[in-house]
């Protein structure tokens, strides 16, 4: 098995970096930053869904925790953005380890249900906790000065900051997936009994994957908060959990670039239809249905099958 980066992956990566560098010339940078935050979230989610084979139906809990903790530390504790985002990520990661510790004891549908129930509890916690301002959310979060010196208030400076986080997170996930750890994870997904009989402690692998995924999801949430200056209940809601599932499935679960493609499509669809009220909901629903009935592998998954690539 070739663990090196393949030529098609290098091409796709080059295309992605070129897009990040050139697209702000033609598209609104805030829109692109939103896409990158959700793309990182979807890639993190895919680590659990695609590579560990576990359907988490509560990833918004981590995204939202990142958003709230990132917002609170930046606003109340006046931390610099990179520290606030790391705090958000660390809290999300710890929460992920706790949730994962409970959830990995069960598989399949039970796993999904436990994560759903824990995420709903997290939602009600943030609804009632004193520091979150309930329905209003934490507003007017300052973007601050990166490393204490570089003001992120100009959109383009913020854009490069977010790009760096996105590419860093993406590279990290790529390394995880292509490491010996990632291979064991895929082995467990394919046949847990066999992996166990070879001496791998399946639950430890799943737990670590879940924790890493939660950490990166929280980083994405905290970054999004810094872009828009707000953390709200919608970040921890069930809608966000199903949105990230939609992104991963649409792009292709268990593929490297799939979640990014999914995030681009879902966020674009949202902003195109934003003025048309409930049509967003209908369109999302139709995409869900089409995904399940027509292309279960997702867009990138189908491309991989057709071109025999491993994007």
């Amino acid at each position, binding site marked *: 098995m070739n663990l090196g980066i393949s030529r098609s992956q290098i091409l796709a990566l080059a295309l992605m970096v070129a897009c990040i560098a050139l697209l702000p010339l033609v598209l609104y940078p805030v829109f692109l930053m939103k896409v990158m935050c959700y793309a990182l979230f979807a890639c993190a989610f895919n680590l659990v869904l695609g590579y560990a084979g576990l359907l988490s139906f509560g990833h918004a809990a981590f995204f939202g925790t990142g958003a709230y903790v990132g917002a609170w530390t930046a606003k109340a504790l006046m931390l610099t953005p990179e520290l606030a985002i790391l705090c958000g990520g660390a809290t999300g990661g710890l929460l992920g380890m706790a949730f994962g510790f409970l959830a990995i004891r069960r598989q399949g549908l039970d796993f999904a*249900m*436990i994560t759903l129930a824990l995420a709903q509890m997290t939602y009600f916690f943030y609804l009632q906790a004193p520091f979150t301002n309930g329905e209003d959310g934490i507003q007017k979060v300052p973007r601050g000065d990166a490393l204490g010196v570089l003001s992120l208030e100009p959109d383009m400076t913020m854009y490069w900051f977010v790009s760096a986080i996105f590419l860093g997170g993406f590279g990290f996930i790529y390394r995880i997936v292509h490491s010996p750890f990632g291979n064991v994870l895929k082995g467990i997904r394919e046949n847990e009994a066999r992996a166990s009989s070879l001496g791998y402690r399946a639950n430890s692998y799943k737990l670590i994957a879940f924790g890493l995924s939660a950490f990166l999801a929280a980083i994405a949430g905290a970054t999004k908060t810094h872009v828009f200056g707000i953390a709200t209940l919608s970040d921890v809601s069930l809608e966000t959990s199903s949105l990230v599932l939609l992104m991963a499935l649409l792009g292709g679960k268990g593929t490297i670039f799939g979640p990014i493609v999914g995030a681009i499509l879902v966020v674009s669809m949202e902003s195109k239809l934003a003025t048309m009220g*409930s049509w967003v909901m209908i369109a999302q629903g139709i995409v869900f249905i089409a995904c*399940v009935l027509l292309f279960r592998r997702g867009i990138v998954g189908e491309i991989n099958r057709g071109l025999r690539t491993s994007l």
Partner: protein
Amino acid sequence: MDTLFGIPLPLFYGQLLLGLINGAFYAMLSLGLSVIFGLLGIVNLVHGALFMTGAFTAWILLDTFGLGFWWSLALAPLIVGAFGILIERLLLRHLYGLDHMYGLVLTLGLALVIEGAFRNKYGSGGLAYQIPDALRGATNLGFIVLPYYRGAVVGISLVVCLLTWALIEKTRLGARLRAATENAPMVQAFGINVPVLVTLTYGAGVALAACAGVLAAPIYSVNPQMGANLIIVVFAIVVIGGMGSIMGSVLSGFGFGVIEALTKVFYPQASSTVIFLCMVAVLLFRPSGLFGRRS
């Protein structure tokens, strides 16, 4: 004034009644979900949207055709049940035997489409639906004032749940259904048309949701979100009662309606979370549910 653990008794009884009424809806919805999961293996996340469709059907029947509450109670389950049969035939049929995830995602998508469509047509504000004339007013039971309609909701729900239970446990059709839940290929081999049985079961489960929707129309305002808010709680109840267990769904439906209401009295902050806490505990320690059995 009489008190119980420092809570005034009238408040206590009031919440108890509210809990029973919520429980009536929980029971009817979780019953349908549970039967559908038992036979089809589909986590029917569109159930809440179909409950809402039932309420809207009642409203439309009155608004457009002038048909009152009792007509709606009979017709809406049939109409929405037929719609359910269409869903099963056209969409769900392709998913049997696949991972549960696909059923979950498809029904979630369907719920979004239905809710979005109603939102488009009727907006997200609520529509009022009058209590039927025969059930206006209230009676004083001494310790509490009971509006007739609310009492009737609990009564109708109990009757519907018991009838469903009897249909499944005591009739020939029910025996076939239970057998197909255990081992569908074997039942098919005996010459029973399992695909038709599956379709009818889905239709019946959906009709139960629509029936609950009609009953809910005069109590809650008829709005597109009414199902989405309820479905996750109902889902938790099904898990707690045991997926596929009839009595389990009914008992935990009423039980959790009451528990939720009483938590609201004694420790309001936890009233929304208590049910999910129980769900996690049940899944970890007794994954087949309180009343379920699992091979």
